[in-house]
């Protein structure tokens, strides 16, 4: 008996249902691209993406493939390769609903769920037009006597619980603990998700909890519902200390995505490739 649930990427995909609120990690946090590929193949529909705090190619591909109904994010772009064309197109043509946010609000809404409180306060935001379109955010006057400014207005953000989180990581140890290093936003995401699945470059025989230093770099197995091995699973995105982003491929994508038909033919190749390309 394994101390954790070993799955295939496709088994993870089968745990994500139409309409799910899916946690999406930023480009620096381990983008689960091999999972995303299978998710698109499955023709999933009406996903709601919750980006912490942004998405790049993962979100743009899912949107361009018609899988997304709604997205909550602080930014959607292709980073160095400019704007995210399928996202732009979907917004302009009102194919998706965007809940425009700001990075710290996306963190705070998950921290509320992490602590199981109904809301989290935040400063800033008031005076931004973001607030006009967020009827789930609420402005109150600071009710505290000796903390904060007297009479200051503060925003309360609702607790958001994700249905599913999937991310890609370097390795899992023999007990199902995941090495996340400094990417602690993955822990916040996991704490705030009903289900958590992880793709990893490799399973190792290590026990991360044998040393305090290594333990501190881990997401404990208790938050993880299943793990799949997937070498180069973030390609063409990069994975910290493992491989850089595949800049050529990302550039190719950014050009192809400029219109739907060239995007479609790019995706045909991407989805049918037997294996993911080896990254350096």
């Amino acid at each position, binding site marked *: 008996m394994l101390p954790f649930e070993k799955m295939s990427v496709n088994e993870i995909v089968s745990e994500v249902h139409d309409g799910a609120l899916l946690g999406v990690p930023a480009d620096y946090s381990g983008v689960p691209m091999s999972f995303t590929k299978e998710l698109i193949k499955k023709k999933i529909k009406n996903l709601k993406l919750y980006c912490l705090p942004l998405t790049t190619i993962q979100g743009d591909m899912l949107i361009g493939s018609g899988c997304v109904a709604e997205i909550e994010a602080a930014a959607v772009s292709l980073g160095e390769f400019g704007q995210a064309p399928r996202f732009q197109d979907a917004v302009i043509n009102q194919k998706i609903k965007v809940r425009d946010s700001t990075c710290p609000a996306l963190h705070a809404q998950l921290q509320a769920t992490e602590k199981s409180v109904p809301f989290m306060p935040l400063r800033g935001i008031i*005076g931004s037009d973001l607030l006009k379109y967020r009827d789930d955010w609420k402005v109150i006057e600071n009710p505290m006597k000796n903390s904060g400014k007297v009479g200051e207005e503060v925003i309360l953000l609702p607790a958001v619980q994700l249905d599913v989180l999937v991310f890609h990581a370097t390795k899992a140890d023999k007990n199902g603990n995941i090495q996340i290093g400094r990417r602690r936003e993955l822990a916040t995401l996991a704490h705030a998700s009903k289900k958590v699945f992880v793709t990893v470059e490799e399973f190792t025989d290590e026990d991360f909890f044998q040393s305090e230093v290594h333990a501190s770099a881990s997401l404990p197995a208790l938050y993880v519902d299943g793990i799949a091995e997937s070498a180069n699973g973030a390609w063409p995105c990069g994975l910290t200390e493992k491989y850089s982003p595949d800049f050529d491929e990302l550039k190719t994508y950014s050009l192809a995505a400029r219109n739907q038909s060239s995007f479609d033919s790019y995706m045909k190749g991407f989805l049918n490739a037997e294996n993911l390309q080896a990254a350096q």
Partner: protein
Amino acid sequence: MKRYEIKFEEILISILCDLLSDDNHVAVGAASPIPGAAALLAKEEQKQIRKKLRVTILHSLRFNNFTDGARELFDCAAQGRIDTFFLGGVQIDHEANINLVGTGKYPRLDKRFSGSFGSALMYYVIPKVILFREEHSPRTLVKKVDFISAPGISDKNLYRPGGPKYLLTNKALFSFNKRNRRFCLEQIAPGLNQYDIKKQTGFEYDINNQINNFALPSKSRLDILRKIIAPMVSEFYPHFAKKIWFS
């Protein structure tokens, strides 16, 4: 080294560097090679006079001082531990409101951009925010932004220790005066005059009595930039570094 050899990006880096000399901690967000290079240059120059400037570059592993995940930048800023940060803007208006979301009438936009990132907190809490937007034209510097990602000024009943201090474009450097809610023209790019700036700016602004051309980097600064800073920038902005210094 002759003057014509200086790249324009190097001038921008040098101008930004001059704005950082009193800082203790400068943070640089994603996709900001020129601010990133400027911060590292300032750090190196401070080191040579035995002062310490801390630089946090989010896009880098080596210059990322954080260990508490992606939220630490915002928490750290809110705690008052970051002196200077850089923000951009698809549009910037006369009151220093910035728009990172798109043009047209939200939510039915004509053109959509990436989104507000962390501006809706960072702009409020960091004492010296430097707006950096290379394109200087009536479509970027506008009378009124179509969407306020973050406002330049807030009401008194808000907690707002931070806000805009400068705006640098490829044509001019402005300071921002919080009291009269206006920018003030301070420096002009080589080869341009005040009339050029006026024509290319969609909003009204004050003009400093002692207006200068962009200061050019000294030879010793250029040496530091090219020999010490350029290889560092290669680590996290390889394409930018290659374009400017290694092609």
